[in-house]
């Protein structure tokens, strides 16, 4: 697929994600996707495989939030790589705003997302969502 095809895919995915519908995004994850939360804070880790990404990372995030939308700002595509700058529009179960800034980098192969690298404001993440639980970190590392 061309850079234009990959950009189109991420535009379509984020049109849904910004409306709170993550199903196309989830469907587009390859079974062997790897997702890295970059940095050196408690959430920083590589999650290997779709099952682990959904259970150990997204499942945990979902358990903390009342609702979540992610609004894309700029989408930049170069061959199999697509970077998406985005702004979160979220609220925790406790009623606190969680509007992080993200730059997500995706590698796409034949219409499936194979690799994700997430850059975000780690200070805000840990302040609002708390540190990533150690037991989940150990489970994801298995």
């Amino acid at each position: 697929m061309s850079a234009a095809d990959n950009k189109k895919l991420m535009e379509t995915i984020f049109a849904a994600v910004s409306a709170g519908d993550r199903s196309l995004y989830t469907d587009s994850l390859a079974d062997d996707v790897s997702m890295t939360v970059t940095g050196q804070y408690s959430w920083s880790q590589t999650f290997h495989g779709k099952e682990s990404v959904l259970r150990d990372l997204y499942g945990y995030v979902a358990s903390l939030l009342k609702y979540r939308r992610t609004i894309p700002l700029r989408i930049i595509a170069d061959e199999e790589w697509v970077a998406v700058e985005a702004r979160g529009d979220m609220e925790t179960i406790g009623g606190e705003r969680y509007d992080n800034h993200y730059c997500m980098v995706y590698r796409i192969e034949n219409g499936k997302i194979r690799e994700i690298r997430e850059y975000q404001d780690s200070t805000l993440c840990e302040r609002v969502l708390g540190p990533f639980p150690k037991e989940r970190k150990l489970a994801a590392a298995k």
Partner: protein
Amino acid sequence: MTSSENREIVKHIFAETAQGNWAPLLESLADDFRFVVTGTSPWARAYDGKAAVLAELFGPLRTRLVDKIVVRAARIMADGDLVVVESRGHNTTTEGKAYNNTYCNVLRLEGGKLKEWTEYADSALVNAVLGDPRAVKT
């Protein structure tokens, strides 16, 4: 300029920052260059104009770190006027602490000059290692 021309400009800039040479970057900044540090660290805000970027951001950063400031690009993506650079710093503070942040930078170029730089980095590491820029004496 095309995507590939912009990619080459940025590739050259980062080939030099990997050696601690920031001259090609500084020469590429437009006078109305804007640097946006995203997030909620005390360094996070928009710095407007080349003079403000040098005095209020690069100056304090230079004071906090010893030796050459080294940043190595891991991946460069170009799409029209925008170039994304994932990179890693390899630096040490004046107190001897390692400051090896991971960055995703989105650069906007116009006519071969850098007009805008949006930085995403681990702000918890910034807070823990660099502290507050207002406390830096330049």
